[in-house]
């Protein structure tokens, strides 16, 4: 039996402009994901929600979350 995971990351208190910048910066690389792994971004008022879903190899899911959060940190830094 393989493990199925869903991870949601909430980025709160973002300005509309910054949230849009994060979304637009991350989405172009959200392609060619391995099978059984997905990532999507949703907007909820002043929050941005990253939704990761993975099945099987949990390391791949963790690596993806790690890379996306690292890139988000870069975006926040260079636009501050």
């Amino acid at each position: 039996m393989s493990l199925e995971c869903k991870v949601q990351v909430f980025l709160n208190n973002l300005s509309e402009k910054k949230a849009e910048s994060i979304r637009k910066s991350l989405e172009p690389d959200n392609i060619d994901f391995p099978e059984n792994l997905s990532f999507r971004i949703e907007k909820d008022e002043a929050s941005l929600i990253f939704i990761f879903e993975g099945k099987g190899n949990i390391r791949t899911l963790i690596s993806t979350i790690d890379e996306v959060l690292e890139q988000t940190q870069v975006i926040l830094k260079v636009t501050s």
Partner: protein
Amino acid sequence: MLGLGIESTAHTFSCAIVEKKGKQGKILSDVRKIYRPPEGEGIHPREASRHHAEHSSEVLSECLRKSNVKIDDLDIISYAAGPGLGPCLRIGAVVARSLSSYYDIPIYPVNHALGHIELGKMLTGAKDPLVLLVSGGHTMILAFLSKKWRVFGETLDITVGQLLDQIGRHAGFASPCGPKIEELASKSIEYLPLPYVVKGNDVSFSGLLSATKRIIPKGIESACFSLQETAFSMMGEATERALAFTGKKELLVVGGVAANKRLSNILSSICARHHCKFFVAPKEYAGDCGSQISWIGLLESSKKPGVNLENTFVKQSWRLDTVEVLY
């Protein structure tokens, strides 16, 4: 016109601001941070990208400060979209996209290898050269024809930069190993026979790599000397044949290995035989840098608008000979 260029294809994270006036370019600032793997080890893509992520904002700030330019003053932003290591490329792309989106500046994804060539031309004044691109990512002989750089010879396996790095790492040096190998080679004139493989106008270095590892116990200096003589003579032969075939009257050497003086000696003597002008990219800008990316972005902006953010790709294996050059 002011352009910010972001380079992050491999070891180097760099931001540069270049000003273009007419056809002239001027580098206002070029700031770099280089990921150094532990001695004897090669580049780990994810570790390199962590390095780039960590230093990106500091490099960008220093680049703006040194050039005395504010982000709002920038006319365009360009980034190296490939070829390169996926995680590293994505950091550069994310920095460029976030600035483009947040400050509403046109964005250009550019080919890293093309940047080496065009920056080399801009800095040396070469007009229509045969190009030898030698680095960790490329070993190619190219000439421009009908809107594209055409390949007149290349490596069939590893690049010359990888060859030097792998020998250096085998001997326990830290990457990049080219300067250390050049220094050791200059202390010997003892040539130990090594495989010399030129097929048509292409070269192959993998046999040379294995054979050089085997002769290192006979003396590291003579091994480095023999390695350089063999590898550079192979490239020299292929380049000379391409010069004779294309009839070009200029030869330009670009890429990190262009900084090697022995390679320049061999190539300049070939140029003398063919009554051809010899150009080599200045050492400071021979390797990976933001200036090469910024300059291509500026050249492209004279012919086309920036791309939409959703189309800002990264492509790990983006061959130079597939890029259409419009400027």
